């Protein structure tokens, strides 16, 4: 049900009225009265809608999800008044929520750009006066907020077909290009507005994506990776402090954990003494964010965990949900204080300074610094892989849980190494290796997460019992702990098969040939 559409750039300085006159000389058009519209464009911090070729636009109390290329509307609904942050789950039930929810998941939608446009509609009519093509001259300005002056953006002509009148659309488009020399706009107006406001077009990714050369000095490669990780920490810090959504903290923690893996695995490129200080500092950074993340996870999975409890069970656990939220608030306040502290600021700034001067610094105590990164990376990947194989082989059905936890930690280390150095090796090697590692890590992760979740619930038992309605909640919690234990047992039973695939002879041979 999508009519064809395109956007053409109007030559600089051509006013809407002049554009309309030029068009009227070429096409049978009727000019309507101009109007001004203000639109707010929404997306997640990581630009999930942009990635999906979609635009979520709010205007006049209405929120519409449209196609970025054709502007065709996929779904629409009411825009909650005064909203500064939207979660898909909070939108009214309907097509808009149905379309958005799987795309944005737990991420919040926030305004990424505001644009005020003067629109001049011009309709191309057929011989009985029916609209067969819609033209709109748009003169947009980006509203930058905080007292900044609005910034004029490139004017454009929207050409939109009408269903069932495709030939007319093609004719008009061809005329606009051949007779008026108009060229397609390279990107939609909201991207211009995002850039004008200093934002990242398409959102801010937390992905690593560092391109390395095999012969590059290992310390220079380490700096490139560490710089990217530091940028991810910095980018996610404001959203973590403001509690925009739980993914900011998640991505911040992943970047911290990756930084720690880099410090550990490439220790030979850093001077030992300052490295020890930063390893302590980053460990602390991870520790202060841990309890909040654990509670975030518990609450994100709360609905799924409590679904299907016996009659009344879901209501019974309501006090537990409230208690978890209370704990989250308290832990978050502690975390925010720590993240805002001068100590954290100094840690990040000093780490940045170390990275700035690393390559030029004395190579004493940095035995791997000048070696080609491919050599250092290959050694580390092969070593950690072999270590994991040895650790996994010792795990029997009755091996204490600790051994699985240790294997998972090593697995994360290997995963990060493969991510850091992916650009040095053929994708045909790295991708299947990451896939079998991921499959193993999923099982190990579930095994550990269920234990952490069950422990957290057990630790809240006394508090829940003391609440009003605590007794039934406690009983329901017993069921939840049992469920978690059962899922943990299932994960353990799947371990042997996943590990066998990961440590298979063919895989060991590939590792030996590629990395050793």
């Amino acid at each position: 049900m999508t009519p064809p559409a395109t956007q053409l750039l109007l030559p600089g300085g051509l006013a809407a009225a002049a554009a309309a006159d030029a068009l009227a000389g070429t096409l049978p058009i009727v000019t309507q009265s101009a109007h001004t519209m203000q639109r707010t464009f929404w997306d997640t911090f990581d630009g999930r809608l942009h990635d999906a070729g979609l635009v979520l636009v709010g205007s006049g109390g209405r929120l519409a999800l449209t196609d970025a290329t054709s502007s065709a509307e996929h779904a629409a609904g009411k825009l909650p008044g005064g909203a500064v942050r939207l979660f898909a789950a909070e939108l009214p039930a309907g097509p808009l929520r149905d379309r958005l929810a799987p795309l944005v998941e737990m991420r919040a939608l926030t305004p990424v750009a505001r644009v005020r446009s003067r629109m001049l509609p011009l309709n191309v009519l057929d011989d009985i006066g029916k609209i067969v093509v819609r033209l709109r001259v748009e003169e947009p300005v980006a509203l930058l907020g905080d007292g900044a002056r609005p910034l004029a953006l490139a004017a454009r002509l929207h050409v939109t077909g009408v269903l069932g009148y495709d030939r007319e659309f093609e004719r008009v488009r061809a005329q606009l290009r051949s007779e008026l020399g108009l060229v397609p706009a390279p990107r939609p107006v909201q991207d211009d507005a995002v850039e004008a406001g200093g934002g990242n077009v398409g959102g801010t990714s937390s992905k690593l994506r560092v391109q390395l050369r095999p012969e590059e000095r290992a310390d220079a490669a380490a700096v490139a990776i560490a710089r990217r990780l530091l940028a991810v920490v910095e980018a996610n810090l404001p959203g973590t402090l403001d509690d925009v959504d739980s993914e900011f903290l998640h991505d911040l923690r992943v970047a911290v954990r990756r930084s720690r893996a880099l410090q550990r695995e490439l220790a030979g490129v850093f001077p030992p003494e300052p490295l020890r200080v930063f390893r302590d500092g980053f460990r602390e950074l991870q520790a202060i964010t841990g309890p909040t993340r654990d509670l975030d996870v518990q609450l994100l999975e709360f609905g799924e965990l409590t679904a299907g409890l016996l009659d009344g069970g879901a209501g019974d656990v309501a006090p537990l949900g409230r208690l978890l939220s209370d704990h989250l608030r308290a832990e978050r306040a502690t975390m925010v204080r720590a993240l805002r502290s001068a100590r954290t600021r100094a840690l990040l700034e000093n780490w940045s300074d170390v990275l700035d001067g690393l390559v030029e610094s004395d190579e004493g105590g940095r035995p791997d610094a000048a070696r080609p990164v491919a050599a250092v990376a290959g050694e580390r990947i092969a070593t950690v892989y072999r270590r994991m194989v040895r650790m996994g082989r010792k795990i029997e059905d009755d091996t204490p849980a600790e051994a699985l936890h240790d294997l998972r930690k090593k697995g994360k280390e290997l995963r990060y190494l493969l991510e850091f150095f992916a650009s040095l090796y053929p994708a045909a090697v790295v991708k299947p290796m990451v896939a079998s590692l991921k499959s193993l890590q999923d099982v190990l992760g579930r095994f550990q997460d269920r234990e952490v979740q069950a422990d957290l619930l057990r630790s809240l038992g006394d508090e829940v019992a003391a609440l009003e309605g605590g007794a039934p909640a406690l009983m329901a919690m017993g069921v939840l702990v049992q469920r978690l234990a059962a899922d943990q047992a299932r994960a353990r039973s799947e371990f042997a098969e996943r590990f066998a695939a990961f440590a298979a002879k063919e895989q060991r041979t590939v590792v030996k040939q590629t990395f050793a």
Partner: protein
Amino acid sequence: MTVVAAYNIKGGVGKTSASVNLAWLAAEGGARVLLWDLDPQGAATYLLRIKPKVKGGGRRLVRGKSDPVALLKGTDHERLDLLPADFSYRNMDLALDATKRPTRRLARVLAPLAGAYDYVFLDCPPAISLASESVFGAADVLLVPLIPSPLSLRTFDQLRRFVADEVSEPPRILAFFAMTDVRRRLHQEVIAELSGRDGVLRTAIPSASDVERMGVHRRVLAEFAPNGPAGRAYAQLWDELRERIAPPGSVSPF
């Protein structure tokens, strides 16, 4: 997607006028709307300045041999599309009779459009026939324009009985008074007795020259006489209808 069929056994009671004006108002309110002109006379299609022609013919469409998406025409309202009339619809009973489960046929034609529209309006031809039964099978709501007269009410009762007795999943039936003349005592009395009760909406559409002039301008009331008595009445009727057909407890997104 809510399917609203403007239907009456009688002709000339304002079905087309209701279909095009309400469909336009729904689109104006932000909804994505389809109007299917099922009347071979094609008056709704004419009013929207579109050629009354279905490529491949109506028979192929109702028998599921044509893709309805390829037959859609955009109207002068960006959110209102039309499935045009075709003169072959005069033989729709015959076309339906040759299909399996003819009373479900129109619903099946609309099924692939479910995600694309919030409302579908069916402008139905008068009479009670196999085509009407297929309309009853496709519609969530039968919207029945009534002229406030005893004979008209008798026909409405017949329709209600028929739908209750013969349709397996009967649509809701909502009526409204159309072509009313407040100077006529009979109209006043009938409206006073039934308006707002027993499935009859409170809003009545007055007999007005603006409605006739739609055919001259080939435009809906909202385009050329939104503030005339009929234009205002249709806006009010849409507000009332929209509230009545929203699922219980839901907040209408438009």
